[in-house]
């Protein structure tokens, strides 16, 4: 097996694994929130969720039937030996995982409107690149973007007069309109930047950050907490059916902005937030930080 095949195989196995087991931080947060709900309905919903995750591992099946479109956030060193092969290799890994896991066929070619039957297509899986100078490592976040939690995504440009008050309204409006059906408790990603595309990318990137992590900017971190408490206080609860906690967390990512514009975007992850994180060194030794005790 050459190195391209070796890395393809590792990524395929890891992707299949993430369909069946949630990352450590998500499991811990669901356990924390589940224990704090006291209505019989919320309790039954959490019990079902925990039983489902146990059964998925025991029976070796995807825990949710919607295994999403695969997205990869890559932080690749310029000296990583497989940098040239990476994008093609990730696509091949998704095809492999789709037949091995099995994953649902979730790639429909636009305009021609047919399902490719392989879970990959033009531009899918999505690969987002961050190039890291002078490094020979490759870090990959894997993410299964399901249909239900993709639907609430929205981006727009506010006028500075609308301020962070406008950002607040933008995010909260989305929670009560589209958030209910997106399988709460949600992980909410917010991008605050200069235009729609910069904000939108950041709002998805924010979902790769571990639950409980904070934006290094003190005010941004304060706003994360305010939005988290505020959305919880709306009372959406698990499945949008009412409860004390509506979110796993709120993560904000930001850049500077044009003086005349505030780009803002929101993206959400469902309670079944299937995110993985794997780091390869130049010899393809790997470390998985999102899930403990994984044997691929």
């Amino acid at each position: 097996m050459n190195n391209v095949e070796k890395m393809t195989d590792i990524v395929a196995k890891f992707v299949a694994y993430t369909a069946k087991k949630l990352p450590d931080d998500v499991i811990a947060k669901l356990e924390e929130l589940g224990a704090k709900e006291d209505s019989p309905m919320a309790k039954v919903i959490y019990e079902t969720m925990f039983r489902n995750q146990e059964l998925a591992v025991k029976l070796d099946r995807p825990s949710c039937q919607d295994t999403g479109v695969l997205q990869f956030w890559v932080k690749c060193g310029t000296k990583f030996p497989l940098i040239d092969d990476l994008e093609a290799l990730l696509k091949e890994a998704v095809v492999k995982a789709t037949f091995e896991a099995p994953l649902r066929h979730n790639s429909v070619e636009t305009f021609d409107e047919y399902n490719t039957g392989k879970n990959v297509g033009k531009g899918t899986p999505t690969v987002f690149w961050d190039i890291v100078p002078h490094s020979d490592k490759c870090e990959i976040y894997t993410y299964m973007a399901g249909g239900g939690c993709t639907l609430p995504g929205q981006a727009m440009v506010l006028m500075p007069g609308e301020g962070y008050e406008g950002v607040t309204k933008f995010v909260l409006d989305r929670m009560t309109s589209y958030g209910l059906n997106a399988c709460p408790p949600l992980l909410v990603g917010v991008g605050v930047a200069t235009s729609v595309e910069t904000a939108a990318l950041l709002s998805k990137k924010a979902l790769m950050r571990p639950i409980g992590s904070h934006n290094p900017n003190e005010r941004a971190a304060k706003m994360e907490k305010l939005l988290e408490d505020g959305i919880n206080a709306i009372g959406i609860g698990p499945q949008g059916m009412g409860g004390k906690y509506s979110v796993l967390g709120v993560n904000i990512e930001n850049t500077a902005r044009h003086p005349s514009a505030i780009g803002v975007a929101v993206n959400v992850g469902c309670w079944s937030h299937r995110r993985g994180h794997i780091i390869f060194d130049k010899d393809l030794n790997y470390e998985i930080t999102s899930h403990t005790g994984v044997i691929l």
Partner: protein
Amino acid sequence: MLEIKDGKTILTTPVSAEDLKDIKIGDIIYLNGSLTTCRDVAHRRVVEEGREIPVDVRNNAIFHAGPIIRPLPDDKFEMVSVGPTTSMRMEKFEYEFVKITGVRVIVGKGGMRENTARACKEFGAIHCVFPAGNAVVAAVEVEEIVKAEWRDLGMPETLWNCRVKEFGPLIVSIDAQGRNYFEEMKVEYNKNKDVQIEEISKQVGFIK
């Protein structure tokens, strides 16, 4: 038939209007018997094309869902993974669908609106939510796939007629009186949201 067993409210098909009369929005129930997956195109065929539904769902249950199925020998099938899909997509068809087919229990994800609520009230039916994302729990509560009709629609849209055992939890979102859980909750959520926007806005005046 409606029974309470070990504290669980269990509906067994065939279900009568009488069985549903004491079930209220927010109740948690379980289902035994005949449950058929039925979603977008099947609704369109029944309502718009006027075709006869090839599985008898009268006094039985339908499930807005598209499963992952594994074929077995002798034209048998195994339910691998099945979860609810957004019920709202069927809202447009559901009044006519209930009227024509006589279905009593509709299972799906999220709320539905006035068309469905009107059907539930007029014809004696309910809509329930199966907690989404729990596809393995739902799959193991399917005892057998009894038959598969309209297979030309492909795996997600085929009518998979299942025999289920204590299928649930099902949370009643529209009852046979026509009350609608999500619509009532949304009023409260929106009120709470306005309060929170005002509170947070006082603390994020970073542009000065």
